[in-house]
């Protein structure tokens, strides 16, 4: 009976590690900071959450901690990405070939310029 759980854990580990590898490759190759945030967001959410589900399957009695960690990670990921991108935008980090820049109009409306 335990082998079924372990097979599921093995599959979850491989998929989680694959997501992490893809995320770091994206972090290496993408042109500017804003697109790189997509890559690290994937690593933080998909990679670790799948690994956590694998540990929940295998270790006994750890599922409560795993649920707390998964909830924390799902909150932390987007918030840090948002904070980093707004900090980069305020610092004036250039965008690579931007198609739309909605924040530019909004920014000068409320009087706070980017500097």
């Amino acid at each position, binding site marked *: 009976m335990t082998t079924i759980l372990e097979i599921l854990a093995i599959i979850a580990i491989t998929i989680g590690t694959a997501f992490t590898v893809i995320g*770091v490759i994206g*972090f290496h190759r993408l042109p500017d*900071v804003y697109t790189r945030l997509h890559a690290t967001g994937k690593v933080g959410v998909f990679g670790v959450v799948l690994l956590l589900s694998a*540990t929940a399957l295998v270790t006994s009695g750890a599922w409560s901690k795993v649920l707390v960690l998964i909830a*924390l990670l799902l909150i932390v990921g987007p918030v840090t990405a948002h904070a980093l991108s707004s900090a980069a935008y*305020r610092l004036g980090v250039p965008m690579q070939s931007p198609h739309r820049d909605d924040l530019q109009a909004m920014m000068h409306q409320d009087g706070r310029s980017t500097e």
Partner: protein
Amino acid sequence: MTELLLIVAYISLGIHTVLLSYAIWRVWNGENPIDRLLASELVGTLVLSVLVLITLIERSNLFLDVALGLAALSFIGIIAFARYAADRRMF
């Protein structure tokens, strides 16, 4: 069947150490401060997944508490750094 799980866990641990070394190398020579901050966030996340893998291998719940603390503290640190980088004043 359990040794297959251990083999997969060790392979994944090896891959994570390689990624971790790249992310750490990227911390000090990113092209702008936010990029280096992003690399340090990636380092935090990768260390978190290494901790989770260790709980898989050791089958002890201790490392999950460490991972919880690390996730919370790296989140606060990244937010504080991003805010300081944007406004040049602490709070």
